[in-house]
């Protein structure tokens, strides 16, 4: 039973016993076990990544009324492995005039920025890499490294398309970090802690019901962070050929590609963790750690699926519209929402549970409605100004 409940501890104790048996000092043994744990987690993630490729391809096919990979293995399940083999054996090119160090460093950083996120993901009540008390900030910090990798890649490729792509992507990521961080503070308010584990534990009621608008904003900002359509500024195949990773081939490209997919899945997971209770599901998570992991992954897949749904449904938005959308709409709304939530939290501190939930929910809806109304009238104003009709035109004359 212990193993089902807390497999990590059982395994660690077992390994510690073995290593001690070899006469290893405790400190070294623990470091070794830690490395081992990291290795296993990363390895599992890479395997997952392979299947993500398959899932992505299958899903996009269904969206586009195609069947997708179906030749290799049942349902084409072997197809991703074939792809990997292709990537591995492909020629590794480096463009002329490239800044070699940075060129080679960029894909590694890209992959790394995703993988280090999993250090703070609470997979189960007992399985958590590091319980950082500033986990929320850590997520953003890891995103900063992703930005760095893209800039590196774009600049070092000595290609103007990739440079432009990198710039656009970096600008987008820098911008959308702000609403993202802002709405991530809302679960922080509810939990009273920045730690991801604590946030999960605190969700007796899913945060989604307390802050639906925050969840939506987080999802939008996450899609922008990921650089996926409709915010795929960095790649933008039709304009920049392939953006910052244009000059990459072989496994270096593979790392970018895998990084992006895993990144999307990871943010699906964070969405679930921050707003849908993470591994929690009516106490089922207490039964077994494996069940908890399954619950989390199920939720993460739903988030991932929504992200894919958006990607394959919406068209790309122009960069200036996108930044304007962020700075003039999303960020102010996030700020207002944060303040509203803080205020409501203070006001409803002593209220009963249902009143608390209701008040929070209604205040979110209210903020959403007001901001949509404001946005609507602002855009009508703008349209009339451009078209030269209505009050706006007369006013500006």
């Amino acid at each position, binding site marked *: 039973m212990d193993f089902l409940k807390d497999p990590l501890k059982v395994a660690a104790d077992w390994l510690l016993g073995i290593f001690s048996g070899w006469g290893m000092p405790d400190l070294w043994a623990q470091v070794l076990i830690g490395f081992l744990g990291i290795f296993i987690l990363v390895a599992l993630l890479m395997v997952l990544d392979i299947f993500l490729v398959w899932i992505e391809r299958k899903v996009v096919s269904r969206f586009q009324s195609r069947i997708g990979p179906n030749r290799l293995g049942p349902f084409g399940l072997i197809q991703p492995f074939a792809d990997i083999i292709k990537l591995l054996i492909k020629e590794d090119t480096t463009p002329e005039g490239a800044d070699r160090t*940075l060129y080679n460093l960029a894909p590694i950083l890209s992959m790394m920025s995703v993988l280090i996120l999993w250090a703070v993901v609470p997979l189960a009540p007992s399985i958590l890499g590091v319980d950082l008390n500033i986990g929320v900030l850590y997520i953003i*910090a890891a995103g*900063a490294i992703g*930005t760095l990798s893209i800039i590196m890649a774009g*600049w070092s490729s000595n290609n103007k398309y990739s440079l432009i792509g990198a710039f656009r992507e970096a600008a987008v990521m*820098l911008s959308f970090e702000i609403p993202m961080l802002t709405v991530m503070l809302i679960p922080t308010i509810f939990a009273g802690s920045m730690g991801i584990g604590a946030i999960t534990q605190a969700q007796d009621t899913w945060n989604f019901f307390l802050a639906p608008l925050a969840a939506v904003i987080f999802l939008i900002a996450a899609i922008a962070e990921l650089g996926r359509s409709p915010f795929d500024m960095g790649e933008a195949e039709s304009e920049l050929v392939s953006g910052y990773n244009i000059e990459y081939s072989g496994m270096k490209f593979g790392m970018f590609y895998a990084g992006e997919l895993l990144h999307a899945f990871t943010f699906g997971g964070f969405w679930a963790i921050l707003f849908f209770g993470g591994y929690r599901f009516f106490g089922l998570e207490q039964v077994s750690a494996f069940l908890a992991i399954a619950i989390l992954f199920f939720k993460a897949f739903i988030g991932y699926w929504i992200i894919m749904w958006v990607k394959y449904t919406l068209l790309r938005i122009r960069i200036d519209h996108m930044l304007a959308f962020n700075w003039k709409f999303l960020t102010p709304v996030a700020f207002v929402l944060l303040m509203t939530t803080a205020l409501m939290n203070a006001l409803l501190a002593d209220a009963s549970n249902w009143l608390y939930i209701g008040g929070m929910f209604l205040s979110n809806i209210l903020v959403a409605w007001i901001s949509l109304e404001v946005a609507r009238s602002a855009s009508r104003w703008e349209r009339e100004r451009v078209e030269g009709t209505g009050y706006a035109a007369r006013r500006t004359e």
Partner: protein
Amino acid sequence: MTVDQIIFLVIAAGTLIAAFRVVTTGNLIHAAFWLIAALFGVAAIFAILHASFLAVVQVVVYIGAISMLFIFAVMLTRKDMRDQGPQLNRNWGFGAFLAALAFAGLVFLVHGWSGVAKTASAFPSDFDAVGALGNALVSPDAYVLPFEVASVLLVAALIGAVYVAYNRK
């Protein structure tokens, strides 16, 4: 020499080398990337000092934002991709001398200070540095006013930067 010390020395050396490259390398983009390396080093130093909040904020703010801005600025202020001509001015020797003098003066001061040999005390149990920091920043008894002033400064800088860099054509 303990493990701590070794780790510190390694990080400090890396940081200083990176910093040195920042001021000496001829390629400005490289200088910016070296700066990122140096900042990572400083973040690591923070981590060693158990200032985890500072460490993460160092990454978010400096690496995530400030260094990106530097790279942007470098890109925006050049006609071709590579740098031309010397990167140091005529007086660099004198500058180096002054910097060395400053370093010497600082070391001298540190050396003469009585508290230099202090050792770190252990963290009290159940002391939450991040929580304490958060409370200190928004508590009216502590630093809410500087905090607010800083935020006003940031807003002013934001608007000012937009205004200054805005292309009026």
